[in-house]
């Protein structure tokens, strides 16, 4: 069973399943750096997934579909931003409300458009974003098979890790965004508009979630399914929590969760173990990773304190 072929397939599916998690993780990183905890990634991705399928189906063009997905996701994120920044709602509650509304709202819109309640696969013609075969690299044994031939959004996700890093640490806006996140009062005292930065951060995480949602319905599969994001927004959020808002760390954590997901899928196809427990693996790994990381962090803090005390003596 453990042939090179098998490893290649497994590696390929790890990268494939990591893609939406990386997008969600990066979106969470931007919000986190701006001092906010965006739990509505789930709803934003769900709206984007439906938007992508619908716009692609209506126009017959996948790129319009992708644009539609991003627009819808941004729209949802701006609703949250408006409620939270202008309306002064509690952010947690807002995000929960938005997730609720999108989970029902997508089904409602789907029913109005197609008359179906579970999936659009029968009613709307399937479109997928193209896959990309990388020349040269595809000829390397094993690695070529793992890295090449993915959906274009998988490559976009890896590029955006770098772009988000560049944005946060090498641009003025990124610096301001981090300043607002670290200390909003200090930031506003030097003339940075906290509200404006908040809107910008939501806007950017909306774009990233749009890509993530579009991948779900136009790359991973070619249709929209009720509740298809299935907790991936929350997993991405935990990835950014684990990395403490570092885009690269968050991406590594996302790939780890993708690995867990792929393991569960592979084991399911072996069929010797109750599939219910295998389904739990991605969620359980999220909880365990959160606990382990915060344990490590607390130990480090303790050490620093002890060191300070001994130095004081």
């Amino acid at each position, binding site marked *: 069973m453990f042939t090179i072929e098998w490893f290649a397939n497994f590696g390929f599916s790890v990268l494939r399943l990591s893609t939406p998690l990386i997008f969600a993780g990066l979106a969470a990183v931007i919000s986190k750096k701006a001092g906010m905890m965006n739990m509505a990634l789930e709803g934003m991705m769900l709206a984007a997934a439906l938007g992508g399928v619908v716009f692609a189906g209506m126009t017959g063009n996948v790129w319009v579909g992708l644009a539609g997905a991003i627009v819808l996701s941004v729209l949802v994120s701006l609703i949250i931003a408006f409620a939270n920044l202008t309306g002064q709602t509690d952010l947690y509650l807002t995000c*929960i409300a938005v997730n609720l509304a999108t*989970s029902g709202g997508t089904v*409602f819109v789907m029913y109005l458009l197609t008359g179906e309640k579970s999936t659009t696969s029968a009613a709307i013609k399937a479109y997928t974003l193209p896959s990309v075969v990388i020349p040269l690299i595809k000829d390397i044994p094993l690695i070529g098979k793992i890295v090449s031939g993915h959906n274009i959004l998988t490559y976009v996700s890896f590029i955006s890790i770098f772009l988000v890093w560049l944005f946060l640490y090498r641009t003025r806006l990124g610096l301001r965004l981090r300043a607002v996140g670290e200390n909003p009062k200090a930031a506003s005292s030097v003339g940075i508009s906290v509200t404006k930065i908040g809107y910008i951060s939501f806007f950017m995480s909306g774009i990233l979630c749009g890509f993530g949602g579009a991948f779900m319905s136009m790359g991973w599969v070619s249709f929209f399914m009720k509740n298809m994001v299935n907790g991936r927004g*929350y997993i991405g959020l*935990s990835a950014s929590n684990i990395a403490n808002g570092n885009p690269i760390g968050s991406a590594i954590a996302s790939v780890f969760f993708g690995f867990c997901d792929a393991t569960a899928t592979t084991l399911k196809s072996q069929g010797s173990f109750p599939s219910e427990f295998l389904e*739990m693996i991605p969620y*359980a790994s999220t909880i365990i990773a959160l606990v382990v990381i915060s344990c490590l962090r*607390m130990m480090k803090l303790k050490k620093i304190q002890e060191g300070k005390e001994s130095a004081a003596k």
Partner: protein
Amino acid sequence: MNKTRKIEITVELIRIIAAVAIAYAIALLTLVVFSDEPVYIIQQFILGPFSSMRRLGSVINLAIPFTFTGLCFCFMYAVNKFNLAGEGTFMVSGCLTALVAIKIGDTLPPAVMIPLLICVGALVGVILNAIPALLDIKFNANIVVVSLMLNSMLVFFAIWILKYKMRDPSIGSLGSYLLPENALLPSILGKMRIQAGLIVAVIAVILVAILFYKTIFGYKMRVVGNNPLFAKACGINMVGTIVAAQLIGGALAGIGGSCEILGNYDRYKWVASTQHGFDGLMVAVLARRNPALVPVAAFLLAYIRIGADVVNSKGDIPVEFITVIQGIVILLVAAEEFMGKFKKNMIYKAAEESLAEDKKEEVKEILEESDGKEK
């Protein structure tokens, strides 16, 4: 001071009514736009739930689980922890209650059996809610993420129990064996066929309201939630209070799950999350964290739900549109700025008036004094 408080309460009430009215108007508008025969559908939506005793009964029946989960979220809210495990708890405690009932069978009289099963539900709730509560307090793991992930896991856990521990192979769909007769909650109030869980719910509301507003623990809980720094400075046991509140909340959600299964079903057959938890969150938000108002909010939500159900069965509008309405209500009620200006103006006006009155009295006193001197 007293005047300010009065105005705050009044505005709060107006705010909630306005929020519900706006959301209801949006719901009606949706129906008008998307339905082929809007007048009939709207009539069904508004009057449908009251059209027969049976339907009114089902509104109350639906309000019972909402009350339990609503109370659960009042506790989470009171200590300011968004522990959302109530959602999964409801499903799993229903599942395990059914399992225990089937395993015990017809051996015990109902008077022993039913309290025992409700205790099972409460225990399941306590255990499940302890997981995110402890991980949060001990390891500082984000409670929202942990509890949501836990919910996803619990769904699969409940399906596993159903499939491998109590599946009845003789029926076509996925369902458990029949629940034993003596475990079922009787229905009360004749024609309305309301499950006896109503009695449990009423008792729970009264006890929780007393706990919140008449005991030391309730006061501690509210202080911890409203002003953690003050609570710490006062020497309140923060960790203990926060965890205890979440465990009690979990127990209530668990009891809700048990009552739902024993009151409304003859077999356990949930294969997806029931959403009662999130509905409970909405109920708690609407009731403004006040357990005494939870039944009112629960009834309101149940009324809208049953209305949507009636529309769903009679017309061409899917029931899901109600979750959008629910989201809007939560947003509007949660928005501090929604009618915030109105509130500020009212308070400002009242303050100005009382200031003017004070001044008048002062002037009067001075005048009287000077009068006295002159004489």
